[in-house]
């Protein structure tokens, strides 16, 4: 009897082996890319599956860089049809696409996302300029009294907010943010830290003379424990700043919207303008300085082969989804101005091949 059971196991194994050999043709849209766009792409996919006869697209959260790498790896059913990105595609990535036969890519922008700095409702209210953020969080800053530049950099000595700016309270600097693998972190480094860095004349001059050194100084985040990498999970950061009133968290706008009752966002100012809180309108009209665009890239060569591809891209820029009152807006996406959205609707309809200008 026991011998029989072993025989049975082999029979099952053989059966499974046979059934496993028939690889089915692709009939479903496959999407990879940014974890920031993921909540929006999945919502659009579900709506698309519910309201059309096409299958619900499969969305993977791989991060922007990883997603574009998969996207550009080639044409055919083993490669994804769409890549989501929380930044614009780079020339190097497009070159990779071209090399692998992905010649024509349709680009759409679905909206904006704000990166917020927030703390517990019980924390002291503060507001920062981009320069404050740079002086608080960069690994190296210009020595006091200088305007920066190659010879004038010192390791960031600041421990409290009032050392950074005397208008800020005497509280320890503790910032929780995403790790370097995250698109949110890339955007924060570029928009906030570099934005503050550029306000020093010496650094601006350095950009012209030595671009690499400039980048290293202006995008390097300190690693002495003041900035804590709290993982890709934004919910975790929200929970941590609720528990610790001194800590400031960095995450996407949709998480602020869902947790307005327990956390407050700090207003941010740029170029001596008035500080602006991250509100829907301020991010939409560009008044809030740390916001970025969210992109979706589709393979033109797959249109007509993968059912529903063009229709799904159209869904993502439709009035019903990404319009002012669309369901993606309900989830925290900041919509494009009407004119720009129709421009991208047109790009999907005509399948216009993108160019980086």
């Amino acid at each position, binding site marked *: 009897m026991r011998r029989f059971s072993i025989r049975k196991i082999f029979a099952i194994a053989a059966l*499974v082996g046979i*059934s496993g050999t028939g690889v089915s043709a692709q009939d479903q849209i496959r999407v990879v890319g940014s*974890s920031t766009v993921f909540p929006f792409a999945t919502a659009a996919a579900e709506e698309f599956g519910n309201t059309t006869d096409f299958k619900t697209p499969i969305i*993977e959260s791989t991060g922007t860089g990883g997603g574009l790498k998969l996207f550009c790896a080639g044409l055919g059913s*083993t490669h994804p049809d769409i890549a989501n990105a929380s930044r614009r595609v780079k020339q190097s990535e497009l070159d990779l696409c071209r090399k692998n036969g992905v010649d024509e890519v349709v680009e759409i922008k679905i909206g904006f996302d704000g990166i917020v700095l927030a703390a517990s409702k019980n924390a002291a209210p503060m507001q920062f300029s981009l320069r404050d953020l740079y002086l608080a969080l960069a690994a190296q800053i210009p020595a006091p009294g200088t305007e920066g530049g190659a010879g004038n950099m010192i390791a960031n000595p600041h421990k409290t907010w009032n050392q950074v700016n005397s208008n800020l309270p005497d509280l320890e600097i503790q910032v929780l943010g995403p790790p370097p693998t995250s698109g949110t972190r890339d955007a924060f480094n570029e928009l906030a830290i570099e934005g503050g860095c550029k306000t020093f004349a010496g650094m601006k001059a350095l950009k012209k003379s030595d671009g690499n050194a400039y980048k290293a100084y202006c995008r390097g985040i300190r690693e002495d424990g003041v900035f804590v990498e709290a993982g890709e999970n934004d919910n975790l950061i929200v929970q941590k700043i609720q528990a610790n009133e001194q800590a400031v968290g960095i995450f996407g706008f949709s998480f602020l919207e*869902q947790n*307005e*009752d327990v956390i407050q966002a700090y207003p941010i100012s740029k170029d001596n303008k008035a500080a602006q809180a991250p509100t829907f309108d301020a991010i939409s009209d560009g008044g809030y300085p740390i916001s970025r665009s969210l992109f979706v890239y589709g393979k033109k060569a797959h249109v007509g082969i993968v059912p529903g591809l063009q229709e799904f891209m159209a869904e993502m820029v439709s009035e019903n989804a990404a319009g002012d009152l669309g369901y993606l807006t309900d989830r925290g996406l900041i919509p494009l101005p009407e004119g720009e959205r129709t421009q991208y609707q047109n790009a999907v309809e005509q399948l216009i091949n993108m160019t980086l200008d």
Partner: protein
Amino acid sequence: MTDRSKITTVNSSVPTDWKSDAMQARIGRRYRRERIFRSLGLAAVVISVLFLVFLLGNIVKNGAYGFMQTSVSLDVTFNADLLGDPSVLSAEEFTEKVRKTNMLRLIQASMRDLFPDVKGRRDTRALLRLVSTGARAQLRDMILANPSLVGNTERVELLTSDDIDQVIKGNIDITLAEANRKVKDKELSWLKTLQDDDRISLDFHSQFLTGGDSREPELAGVWGAIVGSALTLMVTLVTAFPIGLFAAVYLEEFAPKNRFTDIIEININNLAAVPSIVFGLLGLAVFLSVMGMPRSAPIVGGLTLALLTLPTVIIASRASIAAVPPSIRDAARGLGASPMQVVFHHVIPLAMPGIMTGTIIGMARALGESAPLLMIGMVAFIVDIPGSINDAATVLPVQIYLWADSPERAFVEKTSAAIMVLLFFLIAMNGVAIWLRQKFEQKW
């Protein structure tokens, strides 16, 4: 010297004076040490139990409501002008028409009867958003299943949106100032009206156990992930078990003992401790890139997890084969059995309980893995329930990870509820392992 003389007195023929102070102190010390040792042991047990109770308590507290969902009863008129008349149209035409109809208009009509004062686009939209977006599909399926509804008015239970559900469950603090909460006063007053009318109810939500994933917490279910886990584990079992068993039998019974087999043995033991993400990278390189298998499919996930479980299966199988007494082999050999007959008729059947226990524990570990699946595309949003090992699928731990990362507050309880489902399966598998061991255990 004095010490030694003391000891000799104690050991001499003079009876020990148990009542003396020195002796009493010594006895006291012994008892004290005993007590301290025991209380330390007890404290260790209590601490681990407390951690476990805290962890489980927290999950159960958060997750219990995940199995419940709020619904609202509305009197829906199935308007024949909107839906088409099934007695006039053919079955296909009717289905087509119903599919094309925007069911929100039915809900809007019944809401208008309840709240005649609500006007304006924004308010109407806010009012409609009390009801889940899944209500449209719910109504559509109802009509398609029962066309005779058209023309009638029925009281229908529809799911509410996740925000309203959170208010009913007490997870949103409605005493806060209006600006600080997601659900505004206007919505609360509508909710109050519905509650006074006895239209709101909180019931067991079977869709959580039978549905696929969704971006709406009230529609999300774990069934897709359970099926995905089952398909993946099936592939893992049929790959890892035979390969592991043969490797173990060969290494234990037939392989010569030399440097080469020693190296293999050390490597197998080391593999058991390799971080699981490494197996994911291997899976990506071998199964997806070289063999061109489909991304996100349970077949690839199962094979990758089989690599992960193989060392466990081999080590457990070898241990239980080695535990079969040599006398059994000698007796079989003495009666003329060939080496293969010895193994298949005697050694393996006797070692089976241990082999199965090891395999099931390996399977339980595979069930809880998510890191290796990240690399092969199983960390994905997949709505459809997978039908075969080639369909795109996700697994329970991945589902938990994805929900824990979602911004909507209502996913917190769904996450904990999914953890409870996963724990149930883990406990069940370990229970089977224990039962098998008890049932087939041999004593020599």
